[in-house]
């Protein structure tokens, strides 16, 4: 059976075997339903998010199939809007966010030398809350009138026209928000209180730092989203008019509230990715991360700035000129700390001793392609240009460059990096490389042409389009199919064999340049680790007894 799924982690190295001898947890399905172990919950999160990635991916492929040619061949415009809406919601709230929480569950205790997450039972609850939420989201397709079709941003007053599935969607968002807040509290308390002696904050691995900051962002903005959708709910059913212009409400107010959540949300999905990359680049450059302190400060500045840029999503609502100027300047400012991060990664690689195993390939790919997304972000930040590009495919290209080539590629990099630690076996390097190159090529075939479509003025969320846009749409659809198949390959050829324990046995530290407490443990990591706080060396990267 699998190493991850296998309960008998007792075969762990002699030095650590003592950690396990008194453990008699539940087995079979109880192990997962009653899970309180951070590693088990991390595994659950990761499998859940991959499932949702596949569901969201199928929706994306249906969208791309319809857009392969002009004219409506497969779906009607109503269903098309449902597909774009649910693709967005499922990918953001079902795939990317839970995947990072899965990483946090697995890696934060291992990296700071803690025995588990601070609130083990709440941890279980925050995971299992996601299941009903996911069922509500996916099930909304089968409700009368179909799934919500107001876009993932759920702009009022279009939401007021939606059928009962809108309420299901709002309820699902509430549940996911509660889950996220609980997860964040857990992560903050774990990081602040459960670090091993000697693991000072400024010696902490970058992944923990980025998650600490992300968790604060989540606690700050998830309630804002909850407020926005609750007001939508009461507008729909209880006669209020927060956003309903027919009763004197203000639809633009909805957008302000939504994006006050929505922009920090963007960073919630990218900061942990920065953390993963900051672990991997030094490991494969065999050199310490350049500018550790400035990386921490840059991450914090991005987090703080993320609260004062929200209205750059709303340049076309007709803000006064001073408002547009402020949000334009503030947004452009974000490129400064982001550039600092890129420079630091490049400086880390400079005069290193580099090798390019799959985690490093995905990291370099991330830096390269994410930077393209960063630059298009800077171009979009310019209000006069944004007037041309707002709500066109240029925006679609931009946010897929930062969310797919950004967040998702960093997640893949992290999976390859830590898979030996999780499963105890090495993945196939050849298969990893096939996955990387197909993903990178098909990603760009899919999304690069969208820049041209957007510049030429093709609006997003269109079920059908003028003939002049046909060729680029066809190219994008072909790319999307290839990209989707590459991810199926990833699961079938990489993840599944590792989960079943097939492959060369992984040493405790498979990457000779890697540093950190997780590599001090045997592979796979035993179910229980650091039950007594380890004694650390001066750099807090090694155990000395």
């Amino acid at each position, binding site marked *: 059976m699998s190493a991850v799924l296998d309960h008998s982690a007792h075969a762990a190295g002699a030095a650590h075997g003592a950690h396990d001898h008194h453990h008699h947890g539940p087995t079979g399905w109880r192990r997962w339903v009653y899970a309180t172990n951070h590693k088990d919950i991390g595994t659950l999160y990761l499998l859940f998010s991959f499932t949702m990635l596949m569901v969201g991916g199928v929706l994306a492929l249906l969208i791309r199939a319809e857009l392969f040619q002009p004219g409506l061949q497969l779906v009607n415009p109503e269903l098309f809007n449902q597909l774009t809406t649910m693709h967005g919601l499922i990918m953001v709230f079902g795939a990317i966010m839970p995947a990072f929480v899965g990483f946090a569950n697995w890696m934060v205790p291992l990296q700071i030398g803690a025995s588990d997450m601070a609130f083990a039972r709440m941890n279980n609850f925050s995971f299992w809350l996601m299941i009903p939420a996911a069922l509500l989201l996916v099930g909304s397709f089968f409700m009368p009138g179909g799934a919500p079709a107001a876009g993932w941003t759920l702009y009022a007053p279009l939401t007021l026209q939606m059928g009962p599935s809108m309420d299901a969607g709002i309820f699902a968002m509430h549940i996911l928000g509660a889950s996220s807040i609980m997860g964040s509290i857990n992560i903050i308390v774990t990081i602040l209180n459960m670090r091993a002696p000697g693991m000072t904050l400024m010696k902490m691995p970058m992944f923990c730092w980025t998650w600490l900051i992300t968790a604060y962002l989540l606690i700050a903005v998830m309630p804002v989203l909850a407020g926005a959708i609750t007001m939508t709910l009461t507008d729909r059913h209880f006669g209020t008019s927060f956003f309903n212009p027919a009763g004197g409400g203000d639809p633009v107010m909805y957008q302000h509230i939504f994006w006050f959540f929505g922009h920090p949300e963007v960073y919630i999905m990218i900061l942990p990715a920065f953390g993963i990359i900051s672990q991997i680049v030094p490991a494969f450059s065999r050199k310490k991360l350049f500018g550790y302190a400035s990386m921490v400060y840059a991450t914090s500045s991005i987090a703080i700035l993320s609260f004062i840029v929200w209205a750059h999503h709303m340049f076309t609502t007709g803000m006064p000129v001073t408002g547009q100027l402020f949000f334009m300047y503030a947004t452009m400012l974000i490129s400064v700390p982001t550039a600092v991060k890129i420079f630091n990664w490049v400086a880390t690689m400079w005069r290193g001793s580099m090798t390019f195993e799959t985690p490093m390939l995905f990291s370099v790919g991330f830096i390269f392609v994410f*930077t393209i997304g960063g630059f298009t972000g800077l171009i979009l930040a310019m209000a006069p240009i944004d007037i041309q590009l707002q709500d066109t495919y240029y925006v679609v290209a931009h946010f897929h460059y930062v969310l797919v080539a950004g967040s998702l590629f960093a997640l893949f990099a992290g999976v390859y990096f830590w898979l030996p630690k999780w499963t105890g076996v090495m993945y196939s390097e050849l298969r990893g490389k096939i996955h990387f190159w197909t993903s990178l090529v098909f990603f760009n075939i899919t999304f690069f042409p969208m820049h041209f479509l957007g*510049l030429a003025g093709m609006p997003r969320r269109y079920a059908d389009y003028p003939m002049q846009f046909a060729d680029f749409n066809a190219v994008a659809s072909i790319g999307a199919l290839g990209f989707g198949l590459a991810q199926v390959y990833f699961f079938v050829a990489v993840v599944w064999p590792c989960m079943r324990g097939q492959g060369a046995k992984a040493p405790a530290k498979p990457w000779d340049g890697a540093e950190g407490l997780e590599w001090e443990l045997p592979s796979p990591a035993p179910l229980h680790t650091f039950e007594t706080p380890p004694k650390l060396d001066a750099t807090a990267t090694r155990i000395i007894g």
Partner: protein
Amino acid sequence: MRHNKVKTMMRIPHMLASALCWVGAWATTAAHAAQDLPGGPAVNQLNLHPPATRIAQEQHWLHWMMLIICTVIFVAVFSVMFYSIWKHRKSQGAKAAHFHESVTVEVIWTVIPFIIVILMALPATKVLVAQKDTTNADITIKTTGYQWKWGYDYLKGEGEGIAFLSTLDSSHRAMSNSGDVSQAPADYLLKVDNPMVVPVGQKIRIITTANDVIHAWMVPAFGVKQDAIPGFVRDTWFRAEKVGDYYGQCAELCGKEHAYMPIHVKVVSAQDYSAWVAEQKKKAAALLDDPKRVWVLDDIVARGEKVYAANCAACHQASGQGAGAIKALDGSAIVKDQDAARQIQVLLQGAANGAMPSWKQLSDTDLAAVISYTKNAWSNKTGQLVQPADVVAQRGK
């Protein structure tokens, strides 16, 4: 000087376009070979529309400036990275150095991007301030977004009082539904029944609002995009420098027919505009329906058929069969009911939470006509007739 530069730079995408053509050529069949639409999108267009206003020209220039600066930085940063990847590989015998921090370097690469960003923001500020200045307009037109068409009311300046709706050509909508676009014309999904007409060289102020949900009025060649928000008015402006046809589409998700409410602005010479205004006024006078007129069945059904094709067929279909969640009108109990009050109310108020929008903006005569048509079309041969007076009576209720 600046615009010459733009022109030289604009050649680059054309060369790129031809290089990229083969990519699309095999992907789509020759059956729907498309042609460029002047004022609208060109086939495989790689950049913003050729500007037709000063503001669009400035936006174009800004975009080129940003693209060039970003590309230069991108190439510089990644040259360093790929040089390092090439040289500092373990397989090349590279030994890792030990440096890992330098405050000087960090300060330098924080300050330099900061300065670059400020330099970028300066020209953007100038354009932004200019494009928000809607004062001293020659003509003011109110643009109302409806699900799913545009309404244009000429409020001030020459042509004041002209008002009409602008809807996608229903044959294009039907073609879209059929899935077969082999016969699609160059203005597929962009052709409307009544384009907005404006004179060249005049400052046109557009006031946007909406009737139901948020829409956005955009014309890329003018560099204009402004959300149309129900319950609120916002404004934007343009001064077209060239006579011609310009196209745009709704740019804010507004429900299922979002892709089917295009914008077509006809820019004409001052004389042509005056002639158009005179003609519109004459037509309006001739069309001015007396809501007290009593119609005979054949006349009102013929009128109703046109109203139906322009407004109802997109959802309920020409066959009256509806589709999916859209109710069939053929055989509908409400339609065939001897008492027309219920059907009149559905048209005035909308139904199903706005999935069936309100049509109260149509005239009493048009509403009476379209109801009479549905009562007599397809298998609904009821012989019933609704007069404009019946609609007037229901409006107050």
